């Protein structure tokens, strides 16, 4: 039976899980006009969980018979997951109520997905990773199809689900092979295993499963379609939370567990990263839909993030963590703005719909510009610092070619991000397009802008924070 120490270490997860259940149950008793309470509850739970994560820190390397850890990786990546969930929640509320979606279920799924990502960050066992992955993915399948009468939402759910299930099987097969070789599913045991062909196939299959979640080429194809079809706040959420979960597992697995065999996999990850950056950025060049643009952008950023993993060093890992935080802020910020643009109450996801935003609301346009600049990796924003860290890690590891591809891909990305920024400042807005959001969205926007700029100008504290994960990986 779990000891009290075990349970103490699990407080954040328990809070989130409990909140999910509570929201679900309470929703059935609430009249529709009072659904707002659910939002507050969920938010409170996420804040509390985040608080707990920070309070608990990084001192418990093994709980639940070695299944779980509350170390640096857990601390940093759970923080990222909770930040993403909180911001996404702020974005979702208004939309959910406007579109008259089932709020209780929505928030519950959102919380469970967050729980999944958190679990992936803390797992020390492949079974836990698998369960975390499913805890993360299955709610996202459901959320993608959440607007169940909408053809596009259905299609998104269907594609995501089928391909997700397909890739999960590969992941599982990988676990099976690793288990067969090492006799265990535990990551520390895996670290001690010697390099055999069977193990390589097993690890390769694990990588495929995670690469799918992180939308890494060539396992990315679901992402643009699903992002476009899913309801906007869901897209926003999954673009962030799936990345956090997947990269948490990648960090645990590769630099964390297999650092002794890094020659084996760094080349492969570098190749995947290169492919991902090139394809993601190229495909984004000619998009007209903001959602789809951000989908390819999220693919491209997966490539940038993977640079940090491919470096195979702990600096690379903390770079990835910093980048994830930056990515969370800037992507959710951009989505917040996309959410505020509506045409007669409907989602208006074309880039052209942003035309003339600056003349209506210079503050919004300014904020969006900050996000775009940050996504393009230009200073003085978080995006720049994040890229700086991962490029530095790659160069330190001798992966010069990878870093060069990275910087050049960033230049290409500047084209489509700045096109968005430009659109807002040119011309006059279309008559039927409105820009509006409630206080939650505004709050999220402010947090994102301040965060992106603060991380860009004064990155030192956050750098120190994310570097706490380095001890856990060493």
């Amino acid at each position, binding site marked *: 039976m779990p000891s009290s120490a075990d349970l103490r270490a699990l407080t954040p997860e328990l809070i989130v899980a409990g909140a999910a259940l509570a929201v679900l149950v309470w929703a059935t008793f609430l009249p529709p006009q009072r659904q707002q309470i659910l939002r507050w509850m969920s938010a409170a739970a996420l804040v509390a969980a985040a608080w707990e994560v920070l309070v608990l820190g990084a001192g418990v390397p093994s709980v639940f018979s070695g299944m779980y850890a509350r170390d640096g990786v857990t601390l940093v990546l759970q923080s990222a997951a909770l930040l993403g969930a909180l911001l996404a929640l702020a974005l979702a509320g208004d939309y959910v109520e406007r579109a008259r979606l089932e709020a209780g279920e929505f928030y519950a799924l959102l919380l469970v997905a967050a729980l999944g990502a958190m679990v992936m960050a803390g797992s020390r066992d492949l079974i836990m990773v698998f369960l975390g992955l499913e805890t993360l993915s299955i709610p996202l399948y459901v959320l993608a199809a959440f607007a169940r009468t909408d053809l596009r939402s259905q299609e998104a759910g269907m594609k995501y689900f089928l391909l997700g299930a397909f890739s999960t099987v590969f992941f599982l097969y990988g676990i099976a092979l690793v288990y067969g070789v090492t006799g265990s599913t535990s990551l520390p045991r895996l670290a001690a295993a010697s390099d055999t062909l069977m193990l390589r196939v097993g690890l390769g299959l694990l990588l495929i499963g995670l690469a799918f979640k992180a939308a890494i080429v060539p396992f990315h194809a679901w992402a643009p379609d699903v992002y476009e079809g899913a309801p906007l706040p869901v897209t926003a959420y999954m673009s962030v939370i799936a990345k956090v979960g997947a990269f948490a597992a990648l960090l645990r697995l590769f630099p964390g567990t297999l650092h002794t065999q890094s020659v084996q996999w760094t080349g492969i990850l570098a190749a995947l990263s290169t492919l991902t950056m090139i394809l993601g950025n190229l495909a984004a060049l000619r998009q007209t839909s903001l959602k789809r643009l951000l989908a390819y952008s999220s693919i491209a950023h997966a490539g940038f993030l993977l640079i940090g993993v491919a470096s195979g060093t702990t600096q690379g890992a903390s770079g990835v963590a910093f980048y994830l935080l930056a990515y969370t802020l800037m992507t959710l910020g951009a989505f917040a703005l996309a959410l505020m643009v509506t045409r007669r109450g409907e989602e208006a996801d074309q880039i052209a719909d942003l035309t003339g935003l*600056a*003349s209506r609301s210079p503050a919004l346009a300014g904020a969006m510009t900050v996000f775009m600049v940050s996504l393009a990796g*230009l200073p003085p924003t978080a995006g720049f610092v994040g890229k700086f860290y991962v490029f*530095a890690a790659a160069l330190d590891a001798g992966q010069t070619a990878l870093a060069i591809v990275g910087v050049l891909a960033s230049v290409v990305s*500047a084209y489509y991000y700045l096109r968005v920024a*430009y659109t807002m*400042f040119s011309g006059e807005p279309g008559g039927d397009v409105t820009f509006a959001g409630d206080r939650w969205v505004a709050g999220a926007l402010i947090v994102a802008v301040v965060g992106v700029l603060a991380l860009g100008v004064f990155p030192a504290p956050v*750098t120190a924070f994310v570097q706490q994960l380095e001890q856990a990986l060493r």
Partner: protein
Amino acid sequence: MRGWPLLSILVFLPVAGAAVAAIVDRRREQAIRWTGLAASLLTLGVVLVIFERFAVGTPAVQFEERAVWIPAAGIAYHLGIDGISLPLVLLTTVIMPLALLSSWSSVGDRVKEFTVSMLVLETALLGTFLSLDLVLFYVFWDAVLIPMYFIIGLWGGPRRVYAAFKFILYTASGSALMLVAIIVLYLQSGPAGARTFDWLALREAPVAMPLQAWLFAAFALAFAIKVPLWPLHTWLPDAHTEAPTPGSVVLAAVLLKMGTYGFLRFLLPLFPEASRRFAPLLVTLAIIGILYGAAVSWAQRDMKRLVAMSSVSHLGFVTLGAFALTVEGLQGSLLQMVNHGISTGGLFLVVGVLYDRTHSRLLDDYGGVAALMPRFAAVATIVMLSSMALPGTNGFVGEFLILLGAFRAAPVYAVVAAGGVILSAVYLLWMYQRVMHGPVAVKERARVVELSRRELVLFVPLIALIFWIGLFPGALLSRSEASIRALVERVEAAR
């Protein structure tokens, strides 16, 4: 004022001005304009204080400020000024108020956004010239792109979008590789934990040769695109042509200097050996640029394009002086950076004055303007002569020193480059004649009126500077002499 962080004040004063301008009600355009002008003038005031207090005769970095920024990555907030950056800082702060003032007539919409963009741009430019930490430098360097992108893209001519993207993508491609090189430089600077991005420290221990050459190449590419060195220049005519007058002015006067400043600040001291080895290559490109830019200028029909191509030619001279690797050449190069800022900035203002009246940049649409605007014609003549490097104007001193330095390095450099001296007269006089001389051929004569008082104010400081530097270049040369001399010694020492 002793003990004040003057450089930080200098760098962030414009941004503070931008913040003030941002909170003024957007309908009060005049108030916003005055705010912008006041902020830029205040900045100029700070520079004048620094200029006055600047210790002549020492190559040391002065007014130094250093603070921890990102300790984990060895990045510091480190500002300082020496004889190399001082002239450019002065140039920036002189040009900015003029550019802002010129925007009063050429920029009519979204005044607030424009003013904010310009002031942010000024901060980024000053930061670029004053940073002594490579990452800080890079941050400012890249930060220049965004406001300039908007200035071209939002207030520019018909093909502004194309021009803005070309500008930003082209220059960003160059700087991307520089970022890689900066990081490699850092990684080479010592064992983990003792690494640094500090310019002063990196300067003391240049990296070994094969790598040095690669790093040199990456930096050089970024700078060469910015300069722009032939054949990497094609973003320039488009950007210049489409940008609004104040944008063109700042672009020509200051932005291009970032590249040549980079030569002096980073290429030569950090990669002395590679600089020596590749100097002939860069000089060759520079000389091709001198002749090519001039020849192409001559064939232009669009005035802004003509002036833009002339920049390619002029900056070829600057590059030539820099890679002559002699004190005279480098002094001339540095002085010519300032001179080009004044003369080409002035030329763009001249074109701007015409454009404000007729809304055409085509030579064919002009003729006989001197008869309608005699005072303007006189002003334009002086600016043109400065650009042509006529003795007595600033341009001559710079060009003469460059040719002298180049001749000392290798006579053939100077001999070929002297062709540029001839050609600059060819295309400038040609333009001048097409616009100013001949029978009056402008379409709406009534609109071609003499310079207003405000416009005159634009040119007075430029003309004063043209003659001041032309006759008393010592004020600038003496301040940079020690730094340049130390630089040359450093390059000489690395054999």
